């Protein structure tokens, strides 16, 4: 298991973003679904060793992310695309990805080849010498994916990677996800249920800081076929059905404790 999380809590001042989450993830593509404010970004930030847990244990790639020494070993094998992806507009695409490779301590002699390969994987090899400020939103997103994979990460965390991609690019991106998922653990948070259906091997549904559902996309689709929740596609109906079932359980639990 490359991700092993037990009893994870994250608080931002007074609000609770994650509430005693237990999660184990192995190789494959894991979709992280949930409404806005469900805690998807908080979870990804903790897995990226950027967010600090208020309680709980987070083990990544077999190391404890709480210890500074082990954390630095984890970070060399991470790829992370934050939701709000900042960049230096005056850099060329190649310079930018090479800079991130430098931050990730990729050996200097391997950097040019690693950058070239990462850019080819996202289909931006022909724009390598364009300035970042000249790129469209979708291309910037793809540069974001390229910098995340430049060190061939064992754990890849992508927060809303398909935002701003056009349908064709999204199809290509899912192809890349499937390829990456064969060797690495990929965690993708998304609003788009169809991305999950097409590219993920497993789905985790978050709601109000708790895990509402875990299963395969096929199981979520089956759930949608047998329920009459709203949605245009079986997996969308499965998504709303799972969410409602979780909330109904929460209400009964609350009644029992009262």
């Amino acid at each position, binding site marked *: 298991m490359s991700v092993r999380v037990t009893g994870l809590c994250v608080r931002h001042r007074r609000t609770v973003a994650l509430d005693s989450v237990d999660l184990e993830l192995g190789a494959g593509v894991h979709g992280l679904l949930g409404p806005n404010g469900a805690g998807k970004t908080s979870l990804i930030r903790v897995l990226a*060793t950027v967010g600090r847990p208020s309680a709980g244990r987070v083990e990544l790639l077999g190391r404890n992310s709480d210890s500074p020494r082990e954390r*630095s070993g984890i*970070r060399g094998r*991470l790829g992370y695309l*934050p939701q709000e992806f*900042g960049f*230096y507009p005056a850099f060329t695409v190649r*310079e930018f990805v090479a800079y991130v490779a430098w931050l*990730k301590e990729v050996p200097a002699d391997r950097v040019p080849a690693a*950058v070239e390969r990462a850019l080819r994987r996202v289909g931006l090899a022909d724009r390598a010498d364009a300035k970042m400020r000249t790129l469209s939103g979708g291309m910037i997103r793809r540069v974001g994916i390229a910098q995340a994979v430049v060190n061939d990460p064992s754990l890849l965390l992508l927060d809303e990677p398909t935002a701003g991609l056009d349908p064709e690019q999204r199809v290509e991106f899912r192809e890349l996800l499937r390829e990456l998922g064969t060797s690495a653990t990929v965690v993708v948070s998304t609003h788009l249920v169809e991305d999950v259906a097409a590219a993920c091997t497993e789905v985790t549904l978050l709601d109000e800081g708790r895990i509402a559902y875990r299963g395969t996309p096929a199981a979520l689709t089956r759930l949608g076929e047998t329920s009459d929740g709203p949605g245009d596609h079986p997996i969308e109906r499965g998504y709303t059905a799972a969410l409602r079932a979780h909330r109904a359980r929460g209400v009964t639990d609350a009644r029992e404790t009262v």
Partner: protein
Amino acid sequence: MSRQWHTSEAQAARYAAGSLPEPDAWSLERHLESCADCASRVSAAVRATAAGAVLADVRAAVLASAVREVPVSRFARLLWAAGPAVRGAWSAALLVVAGAALLLGQFRGAPEARTLLLALAPVVPVAGVALSYGPHADPLHELAASTPGGGLRLALTRTAGVLAVSLPVLTLTGLLLPASGAPAAAAWLLPGLALTLATLALAPLTGFRTASAVTACGWLCAVLAPSPDEIGARLARCLDGAPAQSAWGAAVALSALLLAARRTAYDRTH
């Protein structure tokens, strides 16, 4: 448009082996021009034959030579690592301070200009550090924080960039203003270094903006307040002579030790 047929695995294998009858091969090739699925099936079949290894070698060689043509220069990497402050408004502010001191020297006399320059100089690298690192200064901070090199290593690289620019510029400006009573042009170097290192040591606790505000205001208050007309005398007490300078040297060493002791705090963002 619906297609009548697609290439089967067996057909692809026979095509790759060269055993498919000529007319079938032609129509297959015609079909491949417009069908990506079949094209990838056939190319997989070809890669599986003896030609595959040769093709892979050729591909690797082409890629390697293409990559060699566009190396990322060491100098460029140093420049990016130097950070936002050195590339941005801070460098302009540094030149304004130096230029203003030279102008003041022309109109009000060199000793007064040098006194003012020495009073302000230690604050300049502190401001540069505040504008170089941390979530408020660096658009890439969230990403950098998830990398092994994004903590203290990056902060120190950027501080070195800031110092490499500000130390020579401000000291040379001081040298251009004749002394006549004011402390030596290089007298601010140790205080500047001490304040910068103290800022770095304090920053994981308070954030870079607060840390630099504390150290910079502390220095300015000590030198400028309470009576601004005695700056010259106070500055001379702070900077002139071996005891004052060795006290600053000790402050540098202490800040460096503190920073070394707190280095793991740079692993975590605020």
